């Protein structure tokens, strides 16, 4: 008797379980089968009731773009759901400028959503949207959609498209239109004003949690500014109005598509974007700001200042904020001091410039460039410790006195004590014979010095005379199974030189005619006639040594990993006879 009850009970449970599983499976398959729901950029969780202490219903998953589309079909636009403030800026919030109390907010959503849906029903729309009483059509759990969006930042090209646009009105009396977006708060006038050449990035004031007098946080500022303008353009029936949906800016695939288009456009422009009209410097002399020192204190030892090609780096980065982070108004050394400061997140100047794994440091960014297949063949094989190689310091930290040595260098006679804080980057006594060059204190003077030093950099890749490069190198020390391999040595060198021809990073950093050779002839001093591979990798087998490859492996590792890194499909690493001809017996 007791057993029967138990069996009945158990099978009941099992039945319920099976039902639940089936239902679940059904729901799951529904989600995954509609590709759109694999992650939506336009999904907004309406958690208006977040202010309430108790949750009354599951949050609503609102699909913004689905609504925008339908409204467009009905001839309506953003104004159907969003109101404008006194200045005509459209509110980021639904049907309101400010948030009322929680229960009022709830009513606001309920009344306005359902009112529109009811109208739709009256107009006999096929899918009018949930009506009053159909609570669970909006308040669904588990949530049927997932959110996936990317940050919709402005890169250089998008920025250019805006300031180049005729649709955006020009600033008063100027032929630029920057003032239409960039503004500053004037304390005295208590209003937003535009100051030319002092434009800031939006993020500098509109943070996630803005401080008075800034009102709008970042997303409110962006959406208010961008959407209002795009909408106005649309109303004016301009030929292009900019996106009014979410996915165009925040959709992953859409963003990629846009970037591809931009790349095409850049190519049409010969790869050069016009420079931003902000009066930014062409060249900057980067030197540490000296801390306040007591009279009798010894100065800290510093490196020579670094002439920085600002103009060139504008082209090489995606946006100013890649280097300038939050604000354009201070230079690197304002926040990144020698000892580190709170403003600079306690990242010292040395780290800010040299951290090898940070995208915003010089070395880190240059390291990233080395991943380009043209460079990776050599660079991927080079051990990279946590520090850049010491030998490369002098490439950036140039002794300005080379100007005195060069025939085209301008001799200065205005000397000061400033050089005391500079340590010689070269310790081999190759100090200039003449008087040291003064590092000017004023901005213009420093920029001019930086420019002169930059101008001394090689304009094209350096290389020894072609006939000095061995043509074909026969590798026969390993030939027992196969015929000797013939390494087209000169051809390899020349094709690599060809690849780095137009790369200013490469031409500046491959500073001598034999630097290139180091890609293969590593660990040996720079020389036109570097020691042969055998001098270090002398044994065929690894016997008796640990880690340093024997000759056979050294050749194979070097050639094959270079080919792999450069993306050369042929010859396949396992196709022995493409390099070593089969031996005829």
């Amino acid at each position, binding site marked *: 008797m007791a057993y029967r009850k138990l069996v009945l009970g158990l099978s009941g449970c099992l039945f319920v379980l099976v039902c639940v599983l089936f239902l679940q499976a059904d729901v799951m398959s529904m989600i995954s089968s509609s590709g759109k729901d694999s992650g939506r950029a336009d999904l907004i969780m309406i958690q208006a009731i977040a202010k309430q202490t108790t949750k009354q219903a599951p949050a609503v998953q609102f699909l913004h773009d689905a609504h925008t589309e339908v409204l467009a079909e009905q001839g309506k636009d953003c104004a159907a759901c969003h109101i404008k403030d006194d200045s005509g800026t459209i509110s980021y919030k639904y049907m309101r400028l400010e948030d009322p109390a929680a229960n009022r907010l709830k009513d606001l959503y309920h009344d306005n959503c359902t009112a529109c849906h009811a109208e739709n029903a009256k107009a006999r729309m096929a899918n009018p949207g949930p009506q009053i009483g159909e609570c669970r059509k909006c308040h669904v759990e588990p949530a049927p959609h997932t959110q996936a969006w990317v940050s919709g930042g402005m890169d250089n090209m998008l920025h250019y498209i805006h300031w180049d646009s005729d649709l955006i009105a020009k600033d008063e009396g100027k032929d630029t239109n920057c003032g239409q977006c960039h503004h500053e708060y004037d304390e005295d006038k208590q209003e937003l004003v535009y100051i030319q050449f002092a434009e800031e990035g939006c993020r500098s004031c509109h943070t996630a949690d803005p401080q008075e007098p800034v009102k709008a946080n970042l997303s409110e500022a962006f959406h208010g500014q961008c959407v209002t303008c795009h909408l106005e353009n649309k109303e004016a029936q301009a030929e292009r109005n900019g996106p009014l949906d979410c996915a165009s800016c925040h959709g992953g695939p859409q963003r990629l598509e846009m970037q591809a288009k931009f790349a095409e456009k850049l190519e049409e422009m010969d790869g050069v974007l016009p420079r931003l009209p902000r009066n930014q410097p062409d060249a900057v002399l980067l030197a540490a700001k000296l801390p306040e020192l007591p009279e009798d204190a010894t100065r800290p030892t510093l490196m020579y200042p670094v002439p920085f090609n600002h103009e060139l780096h504008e082209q090489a980065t995606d946006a100013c904020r890649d280097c300038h982070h939050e604000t354009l108004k201070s230079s690197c050394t304002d926040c990144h001091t020698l000892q580190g400061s709170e403003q600079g997140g306690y990242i010292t100047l040395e780290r800010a410039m040299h951290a*090898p*794994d940070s995208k915003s440091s010089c070395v880190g960014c240059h390291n990233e460039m080395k991943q380009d297949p043209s460079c990776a063949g050599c660079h991927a094989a080079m*051990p*990279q*410790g*946590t520090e850049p190689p010491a030998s490369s310091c002098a490439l950036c930290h140039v002794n300005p006195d080379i100007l005195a040595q060069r025939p085209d260098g301008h001799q200065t006679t205005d000397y000061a004590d400033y050089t005391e804080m500079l340590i010689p980057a070269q310790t081999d006594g190759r100090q200039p014979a003449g008087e040291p060059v003064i590092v000017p204190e004023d901005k213009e003077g420093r920029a001019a010095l930086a420019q002169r030093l930059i101008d001394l950099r090689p304009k094209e890749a350096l290389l020894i005379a072609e006939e000095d490069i061995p043509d074909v190198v026969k590798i026969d020390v390993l030939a027992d199974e196969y015929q000797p391999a013939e390494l087209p040595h000169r051809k390899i060198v020349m094709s690599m030189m060809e690849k780095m021809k137009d790369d200013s990073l490469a031409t500046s950093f491959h500073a001598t005619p034999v630097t290139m050779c180091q890609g293969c002839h590593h660990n040996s001093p720079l020389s036109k006639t570097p020691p042969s591979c055998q001098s270090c990798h002398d044994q065929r*087998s*690894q*016997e008796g040594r*640990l*880690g340093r*490859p*024997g000759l*056979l*492996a050294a050749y*194979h*590792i070097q050639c*094959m990993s270079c080919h792999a890194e450069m993306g050369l499909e042929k010859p396949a*690493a*396992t196709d*022995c006879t493409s390099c070593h001809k089969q031996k005829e017996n």
Partner: protein
Amino acid sequence: MKRRSFLGLMGAAGAGLAAPAVVPATARAAAKDFRGYHTTPGVLFDGTRCIGCRKCELACNKVNSLPEPEVPFDNLEILTTRRRTDSATFTVVNKFETPSGPVYRKNQCNHCLEPACASSCFVSAFQKKPDSAVDYDDTVCVGCRYCMIACPFEIPTYEYHKAFTPRVMKCTLCGPQMRSGELRLPGCVQECPMEAMIYGPRNELLNLARRRFAAFPGRYVEQIYGEHEMGGTSWLYISGTPFSQVGLREDLGTKSAPELTAGALAAVPVVVGVWPVLLGGIYAINKRKEKIAAQEQQQAVSAALAKAKAEAKENLDASLAKAEESANRRVDNEVKKAVKEALAKKEEELKAAEASATDEEEGK
């Protein structure tokens, strides 16, 4: 049964411990203590170097005089099929497709520091040698193939095709050839054109691996497989792809086999008796070794299942007993309560009776 008493029993039975004679005393002292192995040789396999040329397979075949393979060594198509070692192939290279292109990994006996095969073998056919090789002695092997079940890496295989003198076959780390002076390095290591394998003292290999991690940040999963797995192995792996994606089990934990198997053996002693019979039966029916392998796996699974079942039953019994106990307690309590209530009632009745008696008396 406790591990100590199990081992003691085995010792008493004349079977001897797993590898007592040759292993340094410090290593023997406790399964957890591997200090004695640090300078013994090992092989470091660097997965970022292997190009999948199968030269190591060829070399292994040559130095061990193994039969010609079905698929010749210059056929690289075979790499895409997932292969395991067998009685005529001590090492195989498998190809794994990853988002960043194909990755190859060589597979052979890992020459565990505390080998599961050895600890499971009650005739001591397996011995860990001071040169790191886990050696197999076919003259004492009784063919129970316990080692095959015990090895977490599925390495030892059996010569099913040999009716009279079948042996357990696996990579020997070229121990015999190197001891006799015929080879200076294991055959595969010697032949690899990429030096994807390096032979040397295990501690130095660990250092070398770490140096590579430091010199090439981002290239490696910064972990050395075999450093701790199963209590450590003489064969070590570094890789650019997560180990589980190149067919290395990451669920093995860091306990050595003797620590683990001793408990397992103690828990299912019946298997020791039944196993040879069982396998004999299987051998008779199935000549094809793949089939057997599959079956063996199933056997292992069902053995594990049986063990789990037994455990579950035990648990069930225990909880039933507990339930019964608590039910009994409840009944007891109920009874006590009932008795108490009954007594109280009785008392009240008595009192009432007495009262009425007095009343009556008073009324009188």
